[in-house]
Structures are given as structure tokens and as C-alpha cells.
């Protein structure tokens, strides 16, 4: 029996566990599921004679949990903005001096000094988007670039509004409308916010994540929404317009970074530089359907995207607001407000 077990584990060692030999010419990418252009990977493989494996995760937190344990075998990860900040702080990312790379000059200057990686030592932009709202321009023809449509809706939009079922998205929109800072723990301001939300809620029809279905089925005429989903909804309901409210709106960005002790560090650096090439960044956008933060990529993008006002922000729109994770005390306040709102 002992002998059998031994030979079993030996067989395992040889047959099953050996595909990881630290050979040159490998790269292991761990990205959000269904978010990596197969064309991009193929091009990279051919150009550098590197074999790429690609795996998907479903949330920043799943990825973090695995990386924290170490020895994942992955080289490249693509965390969201706040997750980059957390991973740098915990020493999980390799300092690759991204800002000295050959293609770094292509990165749009507004994505260099970001709060999650000031000066871009560790990470470069992958895809970014915004969370605002869409309105049917046939139902409401006035100025749409104001959060007033959500919090003090005109008669034609009352009872025709869907909000995201997301605590931070709803509360941050309310705080922007009132002109108060994010991650707020000022009790007077929060009391005012609660009153605003409760009053506005009487005009809201639903609070739901399935925005595309709500809008295209004609269930609502305004919905808080992500820009990518808004573009897809517009394909089925052409009168929808994506708003860039003057009070501000949320931005997010996923960033490519290299894990500390990556088994294929040099290839990983090659990949980071590779995706800052405008042509390659466009490949990513054409697949994932978001903007990429690399200047000069538009000529290589599908016209459907470069003409989409949801993806390419108009020049006069305010800068997107990236909200870092708030302290626990603030989260507790928010939870209380959210519970009252959802009653």
C-alpha cells in the first residue's frame, strides 16, 4: 500500500505537476473573466515567442485572496483602482518602473498621477469607464447633464426611474448632488442626505442591476447605469442618451500590474509595455468595449466605439470622480442609511 501511494505521488509529480517548469517563453495572466482579447494574446505570443495561459476571476477580492497566499504561479493581474492601492500597500506588486518603459509616453497624462499609483511605478491603464445615468431623450428633452433628474425629477420622469441596487453608487450620487465630500462621516450632512434619498425614492420605480433589460423593455425611461451597458442599451433603444452630470460622476479603472516574485518577470514587463502600444490597446477596447487610456488608439478602434458618446467623453464633461474605499466608521453610517432607504 505504502509502495502504491508512493508511486502514485511520483506519477503525479511527473505527469500532472510538471507543466510549470520555469521555462523561458511563458506568461501566466490572471484577468477578469472574458475581459482579454484573444487577438491581443495571439499577437503577443507570435511577436515574442511566448506561450500565454489565461485565467479569469470574478472579483477583485477573489484575486486578492489567492495572491495573498502566495505562489499562485501568475505573473500578470488586472486589479481595479482601489485594489491596486491595497496591493501596493501590502507589498504584493512588483515595482516595474512602468513610467520608464518605452511605450509609457502613450499613456494619457490624466491617467499618470492617480491616487492608487501616483506616477505609475507599478501599473498601467487597461480599461476604464464611468457610472452615471441614461435618459430617453424623447421622454425628456431638457438639459440632462444634472443629477437633478434623479433627485428632483421633472413630472415626465417621476416614477420612471431605475437606480442601481448599489449602496456606494446611490449614496455617492446623492453626496455629489448636495455638493458634499465623498467618504463622508459628518452627521448633519448625512442626515440631509438621508432626507434627500428618502424623498427622491418616492419617484423611483425600481432599484435593480439589470439596467439593459429595464431600459430596453420600456420599464423605465431613466436609469443609473455604467457607460458600457448604456452603449449596449442604446443599440436597442436609440433615443437613450448618456449623461455627464455637472455635479460629477463615478469613474473606475482596471490596471495591469505584475505580481511580486512573478515566475516570468521579464515576459510580464514585455507584456505591460506591449499593451501601451496604441494598436494593441485598441485590440483590448474592441473586445472589452471600454476606453483604454492610451493616446492614439482611436484610429484602430471600431468606429462603433469611437463614435459612442458613452465611451469617448465629450471634452467639456467634468473629470470622473474616483472614490477610494471609505473607513469602517463611514461604511457603518452608509449601511444605516442604505437599510433605511431599502425598507
Amino acid at each position, binding site marked *: 500500500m505504502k509502495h502504491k501511494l508512493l508511486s502514485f505521488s511520483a506519477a503525479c509529480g511527473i505527469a500532472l505537476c510538471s507543466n510549470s517548469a520555469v521555462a523561458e517563453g511563458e506568461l501566466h495572466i490572471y484577468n477578469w473573466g472574458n475581459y482579454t482579447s484573444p487577438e491581443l494574446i495571439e499577437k503577443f505570443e507570435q511577436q515574442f515567442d511566448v506561450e500565454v495561459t*489565461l*485565467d*479569469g476571476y470574478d472579483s477583485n477580492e477573489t484575486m486578492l485572496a489567492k495572491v495573498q497566499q502566495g505562489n499562485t504561479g501568475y505573473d500578470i493581474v488586472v486589479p481595479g483602482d482601489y485594489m491596486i492601492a491595497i496591493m501596493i500597500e501590502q507589498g504584493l506588486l512588483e515595482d516595474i518602473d512602468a513610467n520608464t518603459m518605452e511605450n509609457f509616453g502613450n499613456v494619457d497624462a490624466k491617467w499618470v498621477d492617480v491616487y492608487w499609483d501616483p506616477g505609475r511605478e507599478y501599473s498601467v491603464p487597461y480599461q476604464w469607464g464611468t457610472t452615471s445615468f441614461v435618459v430617453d431623450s424623447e421622454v425628456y428633452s431638457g438639459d440632462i447633464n444634472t443629477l437633478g433628474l434623479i433627485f428632483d425629477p421633472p413630472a415626465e420622469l417621476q416614477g420612471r426611474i431605475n437606480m442601481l441596487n448599489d449602496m456606494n453608487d446611490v449614496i455617492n450620487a446623492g453626496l455629489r448632488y448636495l455638493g458634499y465630500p465623498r467618504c463622508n462621516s459628518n452627521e448633519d450632512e448625512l442626515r440631509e442626505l438621508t432626507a434627500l434619498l428618502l424623498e427622491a425614492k418616492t419617484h423611483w420605480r425600481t432599484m435593480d442591476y439589470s439596467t439593459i433589460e429595464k431600459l430596453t423593455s420600456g420599464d423605465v425611461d431613466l436609469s443609473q447605469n455604467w457607460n458600457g451597458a448604456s452603449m449596449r442599451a442604446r443599440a436597442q433603444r436609440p433615443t437613450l442618451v448618456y449623461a455627464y452630470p455637472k455635479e460629477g460622476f463615478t469613474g473606475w479603472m482596471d490596471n495591469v500590474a505584475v505580481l511580486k516574485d512573478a515566475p516570468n518577470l521579464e515576459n510580464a514587463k514585455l507584456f505591460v509595455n506591449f499593451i501601451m502600444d496604441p494598436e494593441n490597446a485598441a485590440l483590448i477596447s474592441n473586445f472589452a468595449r471600454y476606453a483604454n487610456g492610451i493616446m492614439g488608439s482611436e484610429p484602430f478602434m471600431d468606429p462603433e466605439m469611437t463614435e459612442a458618446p458613452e465611451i469617448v467623453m465629450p471634452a467639456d464633461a467634468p473629470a470622473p470622480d474616483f472614490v477610494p474605499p471609505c473607513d469602517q466608521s463611514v461604511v457603518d453610517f452608509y449601511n444605516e442609511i442604505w437599510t433605511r432607504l431599502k425598507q
Partner: protein
Amino acid sequence: MAKRYDLRRQTGFSQVAWFCIFMLYAPILLLVLFSFNDNRSVVKWTEFSFRWYTEAFANEGIRAAAVTSLKLALVASVFGTIFATMAALATTRTRPYRGMNLAYAVINQPLMIPEIVTAIASLSLFALIKQITGVTGIGYLMLAHTVFCIPFAYMPIRARLEDMTLTLEQAAADLYASPYRVFWEVTFPLLIPGIVSGAMLAFVVSLDDVIITLMVAGPGETTLPIFILGAIRRGITPEINAVSTILLAVSILFVAVFFLFQRRNKK
């Protein structure tokens, strides 16, 4: 008390039953239905088509994930069933011994411990082993799957052994068959239906696992359920419906074989 008591004639019985059946199966039926919809939407019907199945089969990520899933389920169900058979024999075909109940409990442990706890524990242990030995690869995932497949394979095998009387085995022993021959010529052939149903169940359980796989999987080890989970972040497309339908069909096939062999068990 003239009428006979019949549960099915109680007020509201059929309403409750229909409600339960609806809640259990309506979502699945809807998912299958919309996988045949020739349209990007998963709520609006346009026309019947196999378009999304063609796209799913053409998607290299999905193909690779399917191969990984099958490889994993095959290894886990084969080894899981071998260990489960040995365990079932050791807990039924022996004189009761001290600690037999304990052994029984230990074997069934993966059924009782929350899966997320097992997942995180395995993740930490494997990370430690990788750090010490430097060995990586899909072997870890196969090991983890084999372990949680054992109790699922164990149940039907043990049930089969308990149904089999000792008469034939004792008769063989009386005729001077060695224990080795008794096992291979009497016990094992009689046990085959139990072993097959156990293996089928183990295969399906491995095929459908999400949480442990999500935590333990390394580079190039994405399974079909993990692929689906990752893909829905960008919205549920009919392609996902198509893949889910295929996964569902394979699971139903194996569970059907399981029940077929269970019925033979009873005969």
C-alpha cells in the same frame, strides 16, 4: 373518519406542489430556452437558432475550460471512487471495531464542513507546500477534487454493500476460496452497480464545483463553472446560457445513469 387519509387530497397540496416545481424548474427552463434565441438579449425572444452554441464552440476559452473540467472530473471520480470503495469495505465488511463510527464521520467530513472553509484551508495548505517544494501544477486541483468526491462516491457503494447479504461471500469462503478470490469473484461483481453510481455522482460533483476550484486553481486551470462565473461580470449573454445548458445536459446525463444503476441495485 369514513374517508381514508390521503396527503395528496389535503387542501392546497397541489398548489404548494406546483409552486415548488415552478420555483425549482422555471429558471432553468428559461435559461435553456434563451440559449436558442437568435438575439443578444436574454429577455426578449426573436427567433430560434443555434448561433450561440456555434459561438460557444468556437470560443477557445470555453473549449479549454471544458477540457480542463472533463480531465479533472475523470481523475477525481476514478481516484475518489477507488478510495471510497476501499473505505466502504472497511466500514461494512469487517467486524465492528472501535472507532468505526469515527471513521465513518471522518470520511463524510467534506459533506459537513462549509465548502468555503475547505476552499480557504486548501488554498493556504497548497500555497505552503508550493513554497516548500516548488512543485506546481494541476495535481493540487485534482487532489482537492478527489478528496471532496470521496463521500459522494462512498454513499451509494456503502448502501449497496449493506443491501448485499453475506450469504454468498460466506459460501465462497466455506468452499475454501481465499479472501482475495472471494472479493474479486463474488463481492466485486455484485458491487459494480454501486461503484458505477458512486463514480457518476463523483463525476458530476467535480464537474459542477465552483468555490474550491476558484480558490485552488492555478495558471491554465480554469474550469467551465469558473469561466461562466468570470464571464457574467460583463453581463449574461446567450453564449453563457448555451454553455450553462451544455453543462446542465452533461450533469443530467450522469445523474440519469446514477439512478439507472441505483434501480439495478434494488433488484
